[in-house]
């Protein structure tokens, strides 16, 4: 039997991974809806806990929406690699001849497509309920779409680090939340600026820059973290 030369086929592998993860998520449709419902639920909790007063709610709405979206993204991240770890596919992913950063990037991409993007699209509806001015909806959605991509990328590092631990959930939050803070500040800032009739472009630009940085660095960090976890 001859030695097999490493073939390219990276495109095939990435496409198949994206397809597989999409199938997995869509097969359990509830997986896709759950973060959205969580988002809506958390937003519902705040008026119940704070007060139904519209003015007060409008004042704190950008922050509430952003924090809730952040929590929803982060919670859904917990399962990003856990399923693969439990059934041994992660082991196999690491042993595949394809470059690991590219493969994990495609997993993160699917996560964002099915979590971050729908969250961004849904945020205006909840904004309505919190009496947020209609004019700020576009910026709200855009800032969330950009920001949640960074959140997915950064959060995936934490998910990869904790995948080997049986009770990752809460620990993951700790690792990841501090890294989320810059995204949160500029994201919520963008919405607030629009409400005050300012120009949100600088904030959005910074969010974009954060995304670029995350895109460049985190695939490697995720891959390294996965290798460490599997070693345990």
């Amino acid at each position, binding site marked *: 039997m001859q030695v097999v030369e490493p073939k390219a086929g990276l495109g095939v592998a990435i496409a198949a991974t994206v397809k597989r993860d999409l199938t997995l998520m869509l097969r359990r*449709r509830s997986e896709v809806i759950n973060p959205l419902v969580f988002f809506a639920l958390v937003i*519902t909790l705040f008026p119940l806990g704070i007060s139904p*007063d*519209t003015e007060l709610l409008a004042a704190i709405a950008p922050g509430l929406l952003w924090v809730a979206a952040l929590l929803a993204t982060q919670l859904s991240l917990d399962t990003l690699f856990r399923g693969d770890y439990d059934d041994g596919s992660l082991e196999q992913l690491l042993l595949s001849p394809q470059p690991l950063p590219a493969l994990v990037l495609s997993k993160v991409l699917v996560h964002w497509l099915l979590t971050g993007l729908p969250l961004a699209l849904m945020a205006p509806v909840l904004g309505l309920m919190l009496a947020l001015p209609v004019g700020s909806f576009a910026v709200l959605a855009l800032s969330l779409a950009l920001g949640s991509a960074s959140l997915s990328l950064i959060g995936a590092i934490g998910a990869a680090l904790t995948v080997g631990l049986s009770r990752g959930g809460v620990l993951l939050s700790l690792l990841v939340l501090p890294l989320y803070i810059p995204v949160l500040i500029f994201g919520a800032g963008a919405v607030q600026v629009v409400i005050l009739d300012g120009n949100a472009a600088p904030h959005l630009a910074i969010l974009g820059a954060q995304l670029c940085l995350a895109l460049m660095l985190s695939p490697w960090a995720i891959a390294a973290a996965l290798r460490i976890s599997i070693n345990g």
Partner: protein
Amino acid sequence: MWAFIHKLGSPKWFYAISARLQPWFWALAILLLLVGSVWGLVFAPSDYQQGNSFRIIYVHVPAAILAQSCFVTMAVAGVIFLVWKIKIADMAAAVIAPFGAAMTFVALFSGAVWGMPTWGTWWVWDARLTSMLIQLFLYLGVIALRGAFASRDSGSRAASVLALVGVVNIPIIKYSVDWWNTLHQPATFTLTERPAMPVEMWLPLLVMVLGFYCFFIALTLTRTRNEILRRESAKRWVRELVAGTARRG
């Protein structure tokens, strides 16, 4: 008594009896809904305060009432399934949940749309509105839980337990939400204190409510029959029935 319950629980018997019932309910539903709609949209007088936006009541209130009844029905079906293991009850619960969620959504949407011309806002954190929203979440939870299990039997039982827990909680939630809103601020808008409605306004409403109920029964019968076909597809009588329909074309 027992024999009767079990006969009722037998899918075959249910399939036969519902075949006879469902055309009547469909016909009645269509009739009532058509009459009610035309009456409510065209003939009923417009409200002296709210004008024509008032006509939303004819879909809003029936949907709101039905949404609540659906949850109770679903929970009762869940109990029947858990205690007596009658599969029909679970099939009915499975088809009621999405419809109930849809009705809840209709009530929320029509309420929101009604709120804009009347209150000048789409949404306020009013007690009734809030508890309706929570009910939507409860529905979504039941649906999601049922779908999350790989094995259908477990999904059914889990959804039944959750529906039961939910129905125990609904009065508590309602009570506390009422209480919450009176605590924080005097209710800005009340749904209950309305000017006494003239007969020509509430009669079409009654027709619509009855129409919605008939529609609900008809739809549940039809979809439960589908569910029977799906779940009992291996049974002899279903196979014969399917072969029969095939021959007929």
